């Protein structure tokens, strides 16, 4: 099969052997030996909206029970990873570079690990939309690290068919071996997940790309494909070069197709899933188990590097206990040494994005030499797999000229770290891009807020103008009506109130006030108003369906009226109730 190449990339030391010596272990079982064990399950674990909590402190939950419901379609549910009692729904520190907190469900495990009722989901019997909803509610997200909700990726492109389904088993970052071990040990299950993906996407073929430094995984996967007799699937060994496991790079290597930033790859006839995701789909569909655990590599500065099947929500100190971090440990990194993030502490939980916990030490990851100015040597451009000019992005990001940085395609940067890896000036280039990106995002949301405020303000001005106009119109109408009524009243006055009124009227009239301005005279005005009200009352006929009401009905109407009034005031706080 013809393979393609991508530009750039680097070949750092891989360090993968240590953690592949022993098979996947089950991370410390919850609540052993009577010790209390808490799981901290963040509600927000995927791209998109934060799920709404479905439980509160004191509730008992079962393993696999949904505890957070997807907030709209661009979101994914979360589940209890074991059975036990919810002790709190509160803010806890997140595995995030900021070290900030977010809403988490804290579960005290009861040690019984009691499942909810599990039922396979027969996707052949359901529509595509129903299957997507099922996967959303099963909390399946991309396990390669980006945690993009999987159900959003399962829609074939134009024409309802997909040329190529790509399964990413490249795993190019140093130290990380979770996909490698998963493929070695659970190849059959992965292939069953690939079958589901292939069916859902109506894919013509499925290519499973694995870097050629994982011969055992390649063999296992090839065997599984052959055992299943899948003619439309192929396991492909791709050259080992970081970042061959980037989705865009792997698509390029396997098919020659380049998916630009911001475009859906299905529009180009390809879609890419991580092997872990395929495994999670298999568990969700065929076994009825939502995503409550994942394989996590523990590597780096530890006595016993190893892969663990860890429950989501397991605090890192629990996970790390078996691997024994060495005394000179100075940091914990989630992810690999190229793209990972430094964690704020060891109490943060394993989340769906946690593919690796890399334990760092000054020996393993020495502090960077001092940053020198960029000399535009172009090494970064040679290493950039996105074919960018990283030194230009740096130049403008550093000077906070974000518009220019965007012109040089800042957002095509995948933050793989190759540029910083090769930089002779030791510039933390990716930090500058992250900074520029988050500033640009903040500016954009500020701009959106400003636009909204402008709209609100202009609407208010419009409304005030209209109100003023209406008020003036009402005033004018009332004056006109008053005048008309006054004329009538004056005509009627002698009849209804002969003596006093006429005397008063003539007195006023004689006091040099013209008769044509009766509104300014107090007593005729009162009389006019009284007369007008009287007339109005006489004219008003009650509608037929509101006569002879029972007290209950009247009470109901009153309640409805009250509610309407309330709604009116809420919607238009400045409007008169009848506007």
């Amino acid at each position: 099969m013809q393979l393609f190449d991508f530009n750039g990339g680097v070949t750092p030391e891989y360090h993968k052997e240590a953690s592949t010596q022993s098979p996947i272990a089950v991370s410390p079982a919850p609540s052993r030996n009577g010790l209390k064990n808490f799981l901290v399950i963040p509600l927000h674990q995927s791209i998109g909206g934060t799920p709404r909590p479905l439980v509160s402190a004191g509730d008992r939950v079962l393993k696999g029970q949904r505890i957070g419901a997807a907030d709209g379609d661009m979101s994914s549910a979360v589940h209890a990873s074991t059975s036990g009692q919810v002790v709190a729904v509160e803010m806890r520190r997140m595995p995030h570079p900021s070290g900030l907190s977010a809403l988490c469900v804290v579960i005290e495990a009861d040690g019984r690990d009691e499942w909810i009722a599990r039922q396979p989901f027969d996707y052949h019997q359901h529509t595509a939309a129903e299957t997507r909803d099922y996967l959303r509610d099963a909390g399946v997200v991309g396990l390669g690290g980006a945690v993009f909700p999987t159900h959003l990726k399962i829609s074939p492109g134009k024409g309802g068919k997909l040329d190529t389904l790509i399964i990413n088993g490249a795993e190019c970052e140093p130290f990380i071996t979770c996909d490698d071990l998963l493929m070695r040990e659970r190849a059959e299950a992965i292939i069953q997940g690939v079958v589901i993906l292939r069916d859902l996407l109506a894919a013509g073929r499925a290519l499973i790309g694995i870097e050629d430094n994982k011969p055992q995984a390649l063999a296992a996967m090839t065997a599984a494909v052959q055992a299943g007799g899948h003619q439309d699937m192929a396991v492909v060994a791709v050259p080992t070069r970081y970042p061959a496991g980037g989705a865009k790079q792997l698509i390029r290597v396997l098919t020659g197709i380049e998916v630009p930033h911001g475009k859906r790859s299905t529009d180009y006839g390809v879609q890419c899933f991580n092997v872990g995701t395929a495994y999670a789909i298999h568990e969700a569909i065929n076994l009825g188990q939502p995503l409550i655990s994942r394989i996590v590599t523990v590597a780096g500065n530890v006595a016993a590097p190893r892969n663990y099947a860890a429950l989501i929500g397991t605090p890192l100190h629990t996970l790390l206990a078996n691997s024994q971090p060495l005394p000179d440990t100075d940091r914990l990194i989630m992810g690999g040494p190229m793209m990972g993030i430094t964690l704020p502490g060891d109490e943060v939980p394993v989340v769906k994005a946690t593919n690796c916990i890399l334990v760092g030490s000054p020996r393993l990851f020495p502090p960077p030499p001092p940053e020198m100015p960029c000399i535009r040597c172009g090494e970064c451009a040679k290493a950039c797999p996105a074919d960018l000019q990283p030194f230009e992005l740096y130049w403008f990001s550093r000077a906070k000229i974000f518009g220019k940085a965007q012109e040089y395609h800042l957002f095509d940067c995948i933050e793989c770290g190759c540029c910083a890896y090769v930089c002779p000036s030791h510039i933390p280039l990716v930090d500058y891009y992250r900074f520029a990106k988050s500033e640009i995002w903040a500016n954009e949301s500020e701009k959106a807020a400003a636009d909204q405020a402008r709209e609100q303000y202009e609407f208010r001005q419009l409304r005030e103008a209209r109100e003023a106009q209406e008020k003036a119109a009402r005033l004018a109408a009332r004056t006109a009506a008053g005048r008309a009524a006054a004329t009538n009243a004056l005509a009627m006055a002698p009849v209804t109130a002969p003596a006093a009124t006429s005397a008063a009227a003539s007195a006023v009239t004689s006091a040099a006030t013209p008769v044509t301005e009766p509104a300014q005279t107090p007593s005729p005005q009162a009389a006019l108003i009284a007369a007008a009200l009287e007339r109005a009352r006489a004219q008003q006929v009650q509608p037929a369906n509101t006569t002879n009401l029972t007290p209950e009905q009247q009470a109901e109407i009153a309640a409805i009226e009250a509610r309407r009034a309330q709604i009116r005031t809420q919607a238009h706080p400045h409007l008169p109730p009848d506007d």
Partner: protein
Amino acid sequence: MTSYLFIVLGAVLVNNVVFVRILGLCPFMGVSKKLETAIGMGAATTFVLTMACGTSYLIDRWLLMPNQLEYLRTLSFIVTIAAIVQLTELVIQKTSPMLHQVLGIYLPLITTNCAVLGVPLLNIGMQHNLVESLLFGFGGAVGFTLAMILFAGIRERLEGADVPVHFRGTAIAMITAGLMSLAFMGFAGLDKYK
């Protein structure tokens, strides 16, 4: 034909209006912060300068010289140029509001751009005929535009440089202009080649 080419090339490179004759520095410094504005200004100046050279030649040849009014040259040229600039501004404002906005206050500045007066006067001094005048004016303007664009390119990049505080902005721009002028001295002698 080659002599015409030499007039244009000489005006663009060897006797560049900005770098060698040091004319038109006001818009050169003022409108060169961004490439877009520099191109716009260059285009507007090219139009005005070529027009100015043609009309001033005609005025000189058919109005001033027959009446022995050569002493009115500067005055009448200024008036003519001012009128052409105003006309250009009105036309641009109507036809391309974006360009007008980009050029902003600098469009009227062409009026006071000494290059636009200087080149017609040089024309008279060099006793160019109409075609030569137009070509010399065009060449001068292209040279001005070239200078503007090159300078704007460097300034856009300098915006990201860690220039010492006291030299930021106009100061470093002046130094850069000086060094560019130095580079253009390398063209010296090319127009005198036998």
